[in-house]
């Protein structure tokens, strides 16, 4: 780390990061602008930015996101989410707490397989309809769904964008996420359901006459194209199986998602514009800009210095490092977007994991990746702006004349975030430290 370039890289990165965090300009403009300045100043170059695995755009992340967005775009048009939600509400016979439990579980499972924002976009309108029919306040249901989507999304590699970055940078497979994070998430969901019973207890007034109104909903009407539904579910199942069979097929998740997306677009016979309607091009551009900026820090040796400092500060104490990473990530993700946070932290954690190989007293160094994932994913629940799903829910609620204030969301979210992160501590300890 010599000369002025590292300092210029830090300055450009800091300014861009502040602009992203404060939303003074659109986050895509901030990320792409920062990347452009880094390229223009020679902090990084085209070779490093576009073709290097260490300091360039992580195309695995970009194409995995693109593939899953296309799959979701087609799946959304089948009406399967509306069908499932109304079917579940009718199974609950209109009893408000049972309705909330089923909607929360559907949201969590869907968020584990798809992305959180799409899931809440699909579940929230049904929730508004059902709550209106039941005559119960909709706000607790919407808040519970946002929180559930962030918890459920933690379970898998494709559930939350930070997990996709962590998997790619840490060389972790879909099965690694399933074996380490999914069991914890199942436990967290059980606890979360219990918390909902207490936190939202005033929302569960049962009115038999209103419950009858829910039983009059016809979920079958939501499915307008059964053939498209069958094709979509077959492709989604095949994609999930291919993720799980990574060790047999040797296909990267990004390749699997792209193959699934391509196949679905071909067999669905939908107009390409409809199939690609859910692709969030600004989000993909944001990721690319971020990767180039973080790559600039790697290229100029800044990340290496930070990693050395972090390793010195924690003196190779894996338990301490893991806990600091977990809680600091949760605190930071509560107030800033967890995607740029994880994109920045990933190269540092990668260096720490590499340094700990064979030097960690028998502890699996990957515990640091799991701490980062849990902190970033679960910490997003703490405030109304901590995760994209929260922001989307607030927007939907306001448009439907059920405004949720920042503090109304945060007073529930903070409790859930603290409890779920705290429960991750004994889990990580028992899983990675207690028996080494």
């Amino acid at each position, binding site marked *: 780390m010599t000369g002025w370039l590292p300092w210029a890289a830090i300055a450009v990165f800091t300014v861009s990061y502040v602009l992203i965090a404060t939303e003074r300009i659109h986050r895509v403009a901030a990320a792409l602008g920062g990347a452009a300045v880094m390229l223009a100043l020679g902090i990084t170059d085209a070779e490093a930015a576009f073709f290097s695995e260490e300091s360039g755009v992580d195309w695995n992340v970009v194409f995995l996101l693109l593939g899953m967005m296309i799959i979701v775009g087609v799946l959304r048009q089948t009406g399967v989410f509306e069908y499932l939600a109304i079917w579940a509400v009718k199974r609950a016979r209109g009893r408000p707490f049972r309705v909330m439990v089923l909607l929360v579980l559907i949201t969590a499972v869907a968020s584990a397989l798809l992305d959180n924002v799409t899931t809440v976009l699909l579940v929230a309108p*049904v929730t*508004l309809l059902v709550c*209106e029919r039941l005559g119960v306040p909709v706000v607790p249901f919407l808040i519970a769904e946002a929180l559930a989507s962030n918890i459920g999304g933690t379970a898998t590699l494709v559930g939350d964008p930070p997990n996709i970055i962590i998997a790619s940078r840490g060389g972790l497979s879909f099965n690694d996420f399933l074996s380490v994070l999914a069991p914890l998430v199942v436990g967290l969901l059980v606890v979360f359901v219990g918390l909902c019973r207490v936190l939202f207890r005033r929302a569960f007034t049962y009115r038999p006459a209103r419950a009858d109104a829910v039983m009059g909903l016809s979920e079958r009407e*939501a499915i*307008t194209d059964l053939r498209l539904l069958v094709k979509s579910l077959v492709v989604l199942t095949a994609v999930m199986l291919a993720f799980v069979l990574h060790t047999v097929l040797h296909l990267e998740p990004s390749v699997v998602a792209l193959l699934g997306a391509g196949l679905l677009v071909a067999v669905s016979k939908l107009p390409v514009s409809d199939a690609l309607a859910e692709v969030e091009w600004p989000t993909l551009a944001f990721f690319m800009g971020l990767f180039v900026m973080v790559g600039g820090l790697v290229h100029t040796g800044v990340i290496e210095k930070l990693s050395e400092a972090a390793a010195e500060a924690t003196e190779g104490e894996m338990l301490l490092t893991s806990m600091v990473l977990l809680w600091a990530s949760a605190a930071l993700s509560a107030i800033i977007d967890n995607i740029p946070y994880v994109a920045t932290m990933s190269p540092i954690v990668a260096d720490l994991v590499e340094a700990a190989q064979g030097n960690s007293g028998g502890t699996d160094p990957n515990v640091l990746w799991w701490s980062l994932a849990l902190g970033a994913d679960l910490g997003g629940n703490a405030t109304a702006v901590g995760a994209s799903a929260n922001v989307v829910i607030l927007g939907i609620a306001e448009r*439907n004349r059920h405004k949720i204030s920042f503090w109304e969301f945060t007073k529930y979210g903070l409790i859930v975030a603290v409890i779920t992160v705290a429960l991750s501590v004994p889990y990580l300890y028992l899983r990675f430290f207690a028996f080494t």
Partner: protein
Amino acid sequence: MRARELASEFPTVGLETDALVAARLLADQNLPGLIVVDEHGLPDTILPGTQVLRFALPRYVQDDPKLAAVVDEVTADAFCQALAGTPVRDLLPTKARELPVADGGDTVLEIAALMARARSPVVAVVEHRRLLGAVTLDALLDRILPR
């Protein structure tokens, strides 16, 4: 032909008129929209009929049109009850749009250009700070289309 000659008498509503009354006026008189007037009786804005529908229809159905299909017929028939007790003021678009008001001396082409630019099926006609009436889209087309 000038706007004052093309204008015909047209019902108006105030900002505080009940939305259900306004909707009933639209339906009974087969109107594409209504002129909303201020306390001086001058045009404040135009309320298109589709805007009344947008308000009456639950937003979640607009976000997810598939939900319109799952609701039973009895409830579906009653969705306009959301208008009762709501003032017309609440139905107006939040973004201020160009007010489609023509002067009595405007030509047919000027009215057509105004209607197209404001995307309004009704143009109010004002002269000497007095509302003369309105020109509707079908009246305008009837005048300009070749026989």
